[in-house]
């Protein structure tokens, strides 16, 4: 069994949940509500969908049994998460540099017409 698709949405929060998404197994079985978490030491791990039982304890709804499948699912999800975080950071850096050049251009262009008008 292989992970065929991973979709993630990054969350802009300061909580332990960093992203929520879904994955597909062999293109035939979909699991939604998978969370990428971060622990106190900054390590990422994957939380499988769970529900609260009547006695207050939590029970996983869908999860792998073998170590191999667990490793391949969490590996695929965390890889996708890291890629998306990198993309986001790149986009933010680009925006920041664009804003800088814009403000520079504006400050350079602004004095010129004033001079023209005054004359």
């Amino acid at each position, binding site marked *: *069994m292989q992970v065929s698709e991973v979709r993630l949405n990054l969350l802009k929060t300061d909580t332990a949940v960093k992203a929520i998404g879904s994955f597909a197994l062999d293109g*035939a*079985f*979909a*699991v*939604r509500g998978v969370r990428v978490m971060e622990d106190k030491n900054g390590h990422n791990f994957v939380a499988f*969908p769970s*529900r609260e039982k009547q006695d207050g304890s939590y029970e996983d709804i*869908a999860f792998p049994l073998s170590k191999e499948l667990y490793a391949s699912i969490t590996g695929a999800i965390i890889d996708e998460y890291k890629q998306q975080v990198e993309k986001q950071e790149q986009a933010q850096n680009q925006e920041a540099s664009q804003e800088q050049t814009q403000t520079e251009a504006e400050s350079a262009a602004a004095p010129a017409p004033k001079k023209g008008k005054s004359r």
Partner: protein
Amino acid sequence: MQVTEVRLTKAPSEDSCLAYGSFTLDGDFVVCGIRVLKTKDGNLFVGYPSKQNSRGEYKDVCFPMARSLREDISVRVLEEYEKL
């Protein structure tokens, strides 16, 4: 992908939910909280685990995407239900 194990328990009440339980795919991936449900016409079908979202709608947490797998799961689960 094959269904390798189905576990069902009969539901205590006499409403649309007849049984609940879990199944295993390829002996490796477990799905808990499936239900055997009955429509008003008396047809049986398999209900997948769902969650209520913030809008109050119920959305399935996990479900088969391929028709062949959906049929395979429902056949195996309903077979197991007949044995109860």
